[in-house]
């Protein structure tokens, strides 16, 4: 590649008509959903933020010493304390009279499991922090170990699919319900399949003075065992099957859902991913587990009222519709 092109592209990158909180050159795997989600969140949050990042893939792939992908102030301390770190900095900022918004970023391991206590405390004390959990449903950075977010029956290195057991024995923890029990001003789920929806939710949360929580479903091609180009399709299938409910809560109460346009069977989701490959056969265990997952999806659909109703006007932001000139807003 000629020198001039290199220079031109660097210059062009500098002039992109949007704010970016991260630069490329980071070491995320090809097609990483978490990387995409973090880009989208930081774009929507804007430059006046400080990010406290728990240990995990995002932290590791974005800061390979001596480089950083971050274009906003960013701090890493431990696996278990992103919320505490953010709460501390937020308190200091408040003392200094600076309005900068704190963001706390963590994976599902750092949120559902090891960082759960500091998260609960941060919300309970009412810190002005937007906590974002990038939910890739396992401890990916250390080699795909199961977490309490790993879905039932998914295979991980610590919940392998074998003769004794078809993947993870336990259910995915209903973290949103626990968060909701804190009666915080705003909590929501989102998915990389709907970037416009993520941005809208980040902006909503940013405007709230107080603790807010956003959980983004972020496929991991490595851990979920799917081709890297399928990240969006996998995420979208999660929504359309009902396995990934996309909802918004205010003070613990459901205020909106991303409706399912066309309900699909859970096998449409399972088929795309190697972590569920053992569930696709005709053996009785596979059949039963598929039925179980279908029942869980149906339960979500019923609990949250996810099916689009006749005559519902389709919200074009959340439906990700496009036309010439970009997404329809």
């Amino acid at each position, binding site marked *: 590649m000629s020198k001039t092109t290199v220079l031109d592209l660097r210059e062009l*990158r500098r002039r992109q008509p949007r704010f970016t909180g991260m630069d490329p*050159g980071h070491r995320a795997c*090809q097609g990483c959903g978490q*990387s995409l989600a973090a880009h989208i969140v930081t774009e929507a949050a804007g430059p006046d933020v400080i990010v406290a990042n728990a240990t995990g893939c995002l932290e590791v792939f974005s800061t390979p010493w001596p480089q950083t992908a971050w274009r906003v102030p960013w701090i890493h301390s431990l696996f278990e304390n992103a919320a505490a770190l953010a709460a501390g900095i937020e308190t200091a900022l408040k003392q200094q009279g600076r309005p900068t918004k704190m963001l706390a970023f963590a994976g599902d391991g750092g949120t559902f499991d090891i960082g759960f206590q500091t998260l609960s405390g941060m919300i309970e004390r009412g810190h002005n922090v937007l906590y974002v959990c990038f939910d890739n449903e396992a401890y990916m950075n250390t080699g795909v170990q199961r977490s309490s977010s790993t879905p039932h029956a998914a295979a991980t290195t610590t919940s392998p699919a074998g003769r004794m057991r078809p993947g993870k024995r336990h259910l995915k923890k209903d973290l949103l319900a626990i968060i909701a029990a804190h009666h915080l001003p705003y909590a929501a789920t989102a998915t990389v399949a709907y970037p416009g929806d993520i941005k809208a939710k980040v902006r909503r949360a940013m405007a709230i003075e107080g603790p807010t929580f956003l959980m983004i479903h972020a496929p991991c091609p490595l851990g979920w065992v799917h081709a890297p180009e399928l990240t969006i399709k996998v995420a979208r299938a999660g929504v359309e099957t009902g396995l990934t409910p996309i909802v918004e809560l205010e003070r613990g109460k459901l205020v909106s859902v991303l409706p399912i346009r066309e309900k699909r069977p859970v096998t449409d989701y399972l088929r795309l991913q190697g972590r569920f490959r053992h569930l696709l056969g005709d053996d009785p265990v596979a059949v039963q587990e598929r039925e179980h997952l279908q029942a869980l999806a149906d339960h979500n659909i019923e609990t949250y009222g996810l099916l689009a109703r006749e005559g519902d006007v389709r919200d074009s932001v959340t439906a*990700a519709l*496009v036309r010439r000139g970009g997404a329809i807003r």
Partner: protein
Amino acid sequence: MNGYDPASLARAAAALPGSSLDYEVGSWRELRPVHDHRPAPCHIHCPAGEDAQAYIQKVQEGDLEGAWATIAAFNPLPAVTGRICPHPCEEGCNRGRFDEPLNIHAIERFLGDMANARGWRLEMPPLAEEAPEVAIVGAGPAGLAAAWHLRRAGVKPVLFDRYPLAGGLLRTAIPLYRLPRQVLDGELERLFDAGITFRGQMKLGRDLFLNELEQEYAAVVLAVGLQKPRPWSVDGAAPGDLRYGLALLEEWIDVGAAPLEGKIVVVHGGGNTAVDVARMAIRAGAREVHLVTTRALPGAADAIGPEDHMQAFPREVQQAIEEGVVVHPHTTPARLIIRGARLKAVELAAIRAFKDERGRTKRVTFEGTERVIEADVVIPATGEIVDHEGIEMLPRWRDYLASDRFGRIEGRPGLFTAGDASGRGGSVSAAVGDGRRAAMAVLLHLHRIAALPEEDAEAVSVEALQLYYFDHAPRQEPPLRPVAERIRDEKEIEPGLDAAALEREVQRCFSCGNCLACDNCWNLCPDFAVLKTEEPTEDGSCYVFDYDFCKGCGLCAAECPTAFIRMVDEPTPAFGGAG
């Protein structure tokens, strides 16, 4: 570096903070995304060669004149084809597999009308003093298109026609309610303004001779159409006052009357002429109008194959039936009942179509199905053939002039044919496309181009699109004028789109195979390796891949709604070469 002082760091001072931009993860890539413009099906299906995707895009961008110019670069008659072309583009349109096809012809017509209203012109190279002159015989759509493309290449076309005015069947045969003549005149004015010479009342074989033309001109194109009716009788019998359909139609268009008032009229034939003659009879006040055809109705289930359908365009047949024409499909006139020289009745018989052992379509009449309908007039409209007067010596294919796809006539370098006369016609758009190809062959003959255009590539299929990103939206279609009103005058029966409907309609286009500027790739690349440019790049899109950082995940290609991104093998760097 930004006023940063390493000494201020107490520890780890060896590490200068660097950006990840210093690390080019593009080296991980095995596949690379590339922009890949492939033709949309609307483009492949247009016999005139128009690229609807391209001009609809221009309309979406607000550049109406550019949109028209995109059409006019292929077809000089968009206001005409926008009205009367059977629009096979719409049959091909991928949107038809989603909800309803784009109303492409209405968009084309809107642009054609606007061009005529505003006097838009395509830029032309000046005609050099020594520019070669090419004679074109026949100023129908094929001849006009050939002239247009020759003129655009700096060659001087001279059009000859036996009639005083140009236009071919567009002027003489297509009814006014389908094609108002000021529309045709608007298009012709632009052609003649561009420096195309027209010489009317010059008939080949009477005022002009092929060998003289070949001597005087650098090349000759024969675009004489089909003018002679196929001789018609039923078992040798015909009424003494028999008039052929095309001649009646021409007279009706020319003088505004046809001697059919109060008559029971039987039209024989299944093509456009037959249907237009039947509709003329309705308008001329006929008491009953019967259309008798050995073929099946368009789209009818009892057709044994596509070749068994009436050749007339389905839309025209449907409108004729609405207007009161009684169609008798799979039927033939078996006998004319004539008293004196006058027709009294026509005996009809049912036809069965079938395929013989060699797969050819055969038709037999069924004995015992004969019935007699009272009739005052029978009008044959079973097709026209080339009038070979003055060109008897040329090779033939069936009744047509034999030539290759580009109109080249074997053994006669410098002589070309195009349009209906070549047997590759049948519609205005086909004639226009054929005229353009003949012009290309002329330019090759004159050494003004190096090669003929290649066959079109395969079109983007609907399966390749990401339909998830589109919502359903109704096709914009203004209603036809009501039957009772439209058969009483000559005014156009199909209205055009207004500006608001045009805007809604163009927004429905998927932009198959070309960039929709939807930002999906820009938004969804996990590595920010897609950059937006301020001006369109060489491939026409406003996006470039930054291969320094693209890891080749393929996500952008998988989520490009229009299949404009394709993953290809990463070129392996030459041994020892820098990456």
